[in-house]
C-alpha cells in the first residue's frame, strides 16, 4: 500500500457543549477518491473544514506532508497542498472570473504592487479550457448563474499545486452535462495521483467515481469500506440506520381541472412560455442550467419584471408586481440560491421559518406561542437537526438550511408552490420527506411546480415535464413515460 497523503486521527469537535464529531479518523491515499457520506448534520462539512483550517478541532491529530498538527490555519492548509471547495459558494461577486481564480496570489505586472490582468485572464482561460468549463475569464462573477459559480469554485481550487482536493457537495447545482464533465475531471485528477475527498448525497456519484467510502452518523464514524464491496442499499442502511428506498416512487393521484394557466409569458431570459397546471398536479421543469427556468419562476413570483403574457389562477388574472403581491395571490417560490436569496444567516432558525407567514397572516404584534408551535411542527416534519430554535441559520448544516427554507413556504398555505431545486444538498431520508410533502400538497389540490436538475427526481416526481431550452419551452412530456436519454436530447436541442 502506498504511503497515505493524509491521516486524520481521532478528531473531536463540539459547539457549545454539543459534540459534532467524536473521535473520527480517516486517511487518504494518492490516486484515490475517498467519499464521505452521511445524513444532514452528520458532521461531514465540519470534518473537512478542520482539514482546510476553517474550523479548529478540540482534539485529534492531522498528519500530512510529513508533519503532524493539532490544528491548521487556512494558509497552512493551502501551503501543505490542500485545496477545498466549500459547500457554500465563497466568491467575490464584484471581481471577474480571473480575479477570483488568482485571488490571494495575483500575478504581478511591471510596476510593483500592480496586477497583470491580461496575463491572469490568459492563464485563467487556459485553466478553464483544460477543465472544459465554459466561462469568460473577464466576466464579473455577479453575472454568473449558480452552476457557473460552482464551476468557477472548482477552477479556483484547481489553480495552484494541490495534492489533496476536498469537494463538499460539488454537484448540487450542476446540470447533467456539467456533472458529467466534473466526473471526468475528477477521474483525470485521480489519474494524476491527487487524493480527493468527495462529499455527496448522490450515491450514484459515489459508486461512479469512489474508491473507498467513509460513513458518518451523528458525528461518529460508522466505518470505511471499499466501494467495490458495497451496494447502495447497504450504504443507505448504514447511513440512515434503517432500510430506506433510494428512489422515491410517487403514487400519482388523478389530476383534476386546470387551475393555474400561464400563456405567452416573456421576461428577460424567457420568451413566450405557455403551460398550465391542473389541480393536484406536479409539473416539473427540466433543462440545462441557464435555460431560463429560474427566470421563469421569478417572473411568476413577481420578482422579475414580466414583459408580456398572462397568468391565471382559478379563472382570475394575476399580475403580481412584487413577491408580496404574488404571495397574497397564492403563489410562493422557494429560491434556488438559499444563502443569497432565502436565508437570514445571522438570524435565528425560528425567524427564518416564520418570516413569510408573519407577513401574510401575522398581525402587528408577534404571537410567540404560535411561532413556537409552528417551528416545532416544522422541525419534526422535516426532521431538521439543530441545537435549538434560536441558533443562527449560519450554524446549521447545509442540508438543514435547505429544510428551513422549505419549511418557510410550507407554512404559507399557497395554492401554487414553485420549488426551484427543492432538494439541493438534502440527504436521502429528508429528500423522501420533501417528496412526500410535495405529493401531499398536490393530493390536497394544490399546484406544485418543481424545477430540478436531478434527473431521477424530475422523472419520479413530475406528472408532466416541461423542457426549457434557451429561454423557450421546447416541449412538454408526460413524466411517467419520460426516459433520461430522451430528456437530455431535448435539453440539448
Amino acid at each position: 500500500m502506498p504511503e497515505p497523503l493524509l491521516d486524520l486521527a481521532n478528531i473531536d469537535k463540539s459547539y457549545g457543549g454539543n459534540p459534532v464529531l467524536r473521535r473520527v479518523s480517516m486517511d487518504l491515499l494518492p490516486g484515490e477518491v475517498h467519499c464521505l457520506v452521511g445524513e444532514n448534520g452528520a458532521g461531514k462539512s465540519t470534518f473537512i473544514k478542520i482539514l482546510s483550517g476553517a474550523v479548529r478541532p478540540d482534539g485529534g491529530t492531522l498528519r500530512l506532508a510529513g508533519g503532524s498538527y493539532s490544528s491548521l490555519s487556512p494558509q497552512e492548509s493551502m501551503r501543505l497542498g490542500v485545496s477545498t471547495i466549500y459547500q457554500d459558494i465563497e466568491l467575490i461577486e464584484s471581481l471577474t472570473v480571473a480575479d477570483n481564480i488568482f485571488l490571494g496570489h495575483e500575478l504581478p505586472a511591471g510596476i510593483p504592487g500592480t496586477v497583470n490582468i491580461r496575463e491572469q485572464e490568459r492563464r485563467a482561460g487556459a485553466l478553464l479550457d483544460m477543465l472544459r468549463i465554459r466561462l469568460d475569464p473577464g466576466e464579473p462573477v455577479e453575472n454568473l448563474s449558480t452552476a457557473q459559480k460552482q464551476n468557477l469554485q472548482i477552477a479556483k481550487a484547481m489553480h495552484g499545486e494541490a495534492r489533496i482536493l476536498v469537494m463538499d457537495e460539488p454537484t448540487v447545482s450542476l446540470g447533467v452535462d456539467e456533472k458529467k464533465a466534473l466526473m471526468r475531471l475528477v477521474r483525470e485528477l485521480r489519474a494524476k495521483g491527487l487524493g480527493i475527498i468527495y462529499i455527496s448525497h448522490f450515491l450514484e456519484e459515489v459508486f461512479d467515481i469512489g474508491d473507498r467510502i467513509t460513513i458518518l452518523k451523528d458525528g461518529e464514524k460508522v466505518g470505511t469500506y471499499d466501494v467495490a464491496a458495497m451496494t447502495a442499499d447497504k450504504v443507505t442502511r448504514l447511513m440512515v440506520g434503517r432500510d430506506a428506498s433510494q428512489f422515491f416512487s410517487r403514487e400519482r393521484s388523478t389530476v383534476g381541472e386546470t387551475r393555474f394557466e400561464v400563456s405567452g409569458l416573456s421576461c428577460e431570459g424567457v420568451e413566450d412560455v405557455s403551460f398550465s397546471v391542473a389541480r393536484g398536479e406536479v409539473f416539473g421543469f427540466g433543462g440545462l442550467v441557464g435555460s431560463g427556468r429560474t427566470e421563469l419562476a421569478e417572473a411568476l413570483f413577481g420578482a422579475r419584471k414580466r414583459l408580456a403574457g398572462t397568468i391565471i389562477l382559478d379563472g382570475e388574472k394575476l399580475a403580481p408586481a412584487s413577491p408580496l403581491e404574488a404571495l397574497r395571490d397564492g403563489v410562493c417560490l422557494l429560491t434556488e440560491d438559499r444563502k443569497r436569496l432565502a436565508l437570514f444567516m445571522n438570524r435565528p432558525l425560528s425567524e427564518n421559518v416564520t418570516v413569510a407567514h408573519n407577513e401574510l397572516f401575522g398581525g402587528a404584534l408577534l404571537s410567540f406561542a404560535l411561532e413556537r408551535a409552528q417551528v416545532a411542527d416544522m422541525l419534526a416534519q422535516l426532521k431538521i437537526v439543530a441545537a435549538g430554535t434560536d441558533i443562527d441559520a449560519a450554524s446549521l448544516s447545509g442540508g438543514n438550511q435547505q429544510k428551513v427554507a422549505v419549511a418557510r413556504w410550507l407554512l404559507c398555505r399557497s395554492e401554487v408552490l414553485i420549488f426551484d431545486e427543492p432538494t439541493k444538498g438534502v440527504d436521502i431520508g429528508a429528500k423522501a420527506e420533501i417528496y412526500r410533502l410535495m405529493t401531499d400538497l398536490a393530493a390536497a389540490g394544490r399546484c406544485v411546480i418543481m424545477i430540478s436538475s436531478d434527473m431521477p427526481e424530475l422523472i419520479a416526481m413530475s406528472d408532466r415535464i416541461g423542457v426549457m431550452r434557451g429561454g423557450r419551452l421546447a416541449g412538454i412530456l408526460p413524466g411517467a413515460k419520460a426516459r433520461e436519454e430522451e430528456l437530455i436530447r431535448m435539453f440539448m436541442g
Partner: protein
Amino acid sequence: MKTMTRRKGRTFYKQQWFILMVVIVAMAAATGIANPKFFSVRNLVNILEQISTLGLVASGATVLMISGNFDISVGSTIGLSACAMAMLMKRDVAEPLAVAAGLGVAILCCLFIGANSLLFKAPSFIISLACVGIYRGIALALTGGTIQTIYGKFEYLGSTRYCGVLPLLFIVSLVGYLAVHFILARTRLGRRVYAIGSNRNAAFLSGIAINRNLMTFFLINGILVGAAAALLLSRVGAVQPATGAGMELRAMGAVVIGGAPMTGGKGNILGTFTGVLLMGVISNVLNMLQVSPYFQDITFGLLIIVSLAISAMSQKWQK
C-alpha cells in the same frame, strides 16, 4: 440525530451588555473611592440628565443600524429642529405647537434621507452625509447664525425632577428605549428591521415590502431625533445651528459599543442602553478627575475600538 427544540441561548454573562455593566460598575466604584463626590445625588442625577438626549438619538440609530442603514446627519437635524422650536417660541407660538413643528422638521429631515436613498438606490450613509451640510446650512440661514435663547420658556421638561432625584428628561429617554425595545422584540415591524438588515434580497423574496418599511424606520428615527432636540432645548435654554454636532458619532458609537455589528441584522436596545450609560459615566468620570477635554475625545475613540475588539473576540470563541 434526534431533533431538539431545547432553547439554549447565549448565556447572559457572555453578552455585551453584561460585560459593559460590569465595566460601568467597576469604573463607578473606582471613581467613587478616588472622589466620593461621584456618588453624590447631584452628580448621579447630572449623569442621567446628560445622557437623555444621546439615549433617544442612539435608540433611533439602533433601529437604523440593525436594518443596515445609517443617518449621520442627525447632529445637524437636531440643530435645525431645535432652532426651529426656539425661534417659534421666541415669537410667542405656544410651546406644544412649537415642539410639534420642530418634531415635524426632524421627521421630514429623516424621511428625506430615506426617500432619496430608495429613489436613487444609494446607501443612506452617503445621502445623509450630503444632508449634514444641507440641514446645517438651512439652520444657519434661518437663524442668521445667531444663538437662539428662549429666556425661561419651555423649562418644565428640562427642570422637573420627581422626588428631587428622577429627572423627567431621563424618563422621556427611557420611554424612547422601551418603545424601540418593544418594536424590535415584540412586533412584526421589528422582525422586518432585522430581516432587511440581515439579507435585503431574502427579505424582499419573503414578501417584505422593502420601501415602505425602510421609510417607517426613518420615520421612527425622525420622531426620536425630534424628541431629542426638544429635550436639549429645554435643558439648555438656548440653541444654535451647531447644537448637536458630533451627536451622530456618539450615538452610532454607543450602538456599536452595545454590540451591534456595522453589517446589520443584529443588535438590541439593552446593548445600546449600556453603551450610552458607559459613555455618560466615562465622560463624567473624566470630568471628576479633571482630565482635559481633549483626552475625552481620545477616550471615546478608543472605547469604540475596544468594544469592537470585544465583539471580535467573542465571535472567535464561538468558532
